[in-house]
């Protein structure tokens, strides 16, 4: 502290009462007058910057690096031990539509933007310690300049994707009692159980709600950081930056797990999202209640549909819960 303010040291030894008041005011960021117009130009010292520096450099970058590394490590271990979750019965050859075209487009639109945002964002957080030595100072700075711009523009587009996802998948992602059972059976990842699930299983719902909540936070704080011309105080920017980074890191951890499960982790999952169709065997193993609902739907007339759908999954999940 004193290294920063050699003159403060001098003044405090002078022990003049009002000088001390002045410097206390200055350090507290008391606003005065300045002929230089602008935001906070009338403050001498903005003291929370040092806390922000500590939180960003030590807690977020330091802890964040560990959390990301451990996530990748854990997924790799899981893959080595458990391997792919395969279909336990042979494919039936009968295909069922799981994701319609709109859903698939929305998924990959948001996913692409997410990956762009994650890479450019992580570059600003870790690039200095990881990439500069590797590609050179100038090359990294050139890249980082584009990374910043791309990040700033891709952000709001990503948020549009989030909002749409929230709208079309909200109904399917409401938590129901049956999801508790899914979690208690560890989603079938450990052990040989095939826990019951509707169109979305407990894990998918958890990911959806992480996306919605952390996504909301990154959106609000990101928009704030996107527009430094709105005359925000530095404190607002510092807090926004912290929330933005923490929420984004949580999303990246979630996305790593999601990508793992959706690709090499589960047989047949990715093909569902790419082609929109899944094998009936797959549907039965992973989303039995959903399959039942679909089957029931096609055998009832359209007027009765909605009512029956709900009561079927309701009844089934109640029996399942009793059994467990």
């Amino acid at each position: 502290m004193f290294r920063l303010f050699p003159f403060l040291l001098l003044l405090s030894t002078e022990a003049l009462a009002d000088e001390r008041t002045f410097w206390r005011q200055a350090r507290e960021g008391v606003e005065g007058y300045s002929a230089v117009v602008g935001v906070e130009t009338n403050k001498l010292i903005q003291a929370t910057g040092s806390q922000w520096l500590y939180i960003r450099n030590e807690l977020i970058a330091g802890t964040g690096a560990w959390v990301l590394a451990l996530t990748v490590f854990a997924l790799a271990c899981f893959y080595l031990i458990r391997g792919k979750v395969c279909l336990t019965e042979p494919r039936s050859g009968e295909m069922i539509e799981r994701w319609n075209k709109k859903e698939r487009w929305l998924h990959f639109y948001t996913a692409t933007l997410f990956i762009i945002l994650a890479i450019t964002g992580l570059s600003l957080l870790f690039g200095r310690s990881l990439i500069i030595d590797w590609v050179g100072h100038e090359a990294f700075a050139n890249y980082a300049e584009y990374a910043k711009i791309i990040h700033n523009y891709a952000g709001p587009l990503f948020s549009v994707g989030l909002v749409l996802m929230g709208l079309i998948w909200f109904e399917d992602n409401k938590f129901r009692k049956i999801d508790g059972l899914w979690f208690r059976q560890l989603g079938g990842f450990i052990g040989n159980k095939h826990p019951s699930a509707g169109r979305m299983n407990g894990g998918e719902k958890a990911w959806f709600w992480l996306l919605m909540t952390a996504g909301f936070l990154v959106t609000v704080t990101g928009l704030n950081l996107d527009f430094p011309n709105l005359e925000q105080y530095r404190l607002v920017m510092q807090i926004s930056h912290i929330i933005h980074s923490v929420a984004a890191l949580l999303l990246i951890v979630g996305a790593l797990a999601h990508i793992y499960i959706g690709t090499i982790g589960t047989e047949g999952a990715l093909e569902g999202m790419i082609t929109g169709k899944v094998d009936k065997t797959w549907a039965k193993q992973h989303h039995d209640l959903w399959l039942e609902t679909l089957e029931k739907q096609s055998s009832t007339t359209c007027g009765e549909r909605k009512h029956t759908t709900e009561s079927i999954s309701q009844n089934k999940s109640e029996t399942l819960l009793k059994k467990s």
Partner: protein
Amino acid sequence: MARMKFICDDDRCIECDACITACKNENEVPWGVNRRRVVTLNDGKADETSISVACMHCSDAPCAQVCPVNCFYTTEDGVVLHDKDLCIGCGYCFYACPFGAPQFPQDGAFGNRGKMDKCTFCAGGPEEDFSEAEFEKYGRNRLAEGKLPLCAEMCSTKALLAGDGDVISKLFSQRAVERQLNQEESDNSASGPKLWGWKTAYKE
């Protein structure tokens, strides 16, 4: 090696804002950017106090610690400079700096920040000394000319001091001691030596 520092004597600063103007003119800084500013606290009250502030060329500069492209460097003279060719205008240095020294010209839509600009202690930048590129990006390199920053050089009350930290802090503490002595003397007799500063002006 000398470590360059600024000290502003709040007992002497009369808020004439000449340092701001001198800096702007000498360095031809970008539009909307002021590398130096004068802040007055308790304006209009008996304990009104003004200080001229710019980059303080910190020893362990917070700005340098957060810069994602690591574009800051400290010169042999202890001046904290940065490389505008590397800067990406992220604003992190501005969030970390206690003095609000880093400034940004707007560049492009939505308030996108351009390259950061801040006080260079009139020491130019990484470009070759006295080159046109150096002047254009960073302003005058007075240090290389053997001169001190213009703001301090032309300060009419010598409130703003710039130079080797050891030298100017000695000067400053000597001032403070003498001021104290003068104060005591003038308290005892009506004809004591006159002092600089508000305490005389307001007869506190």
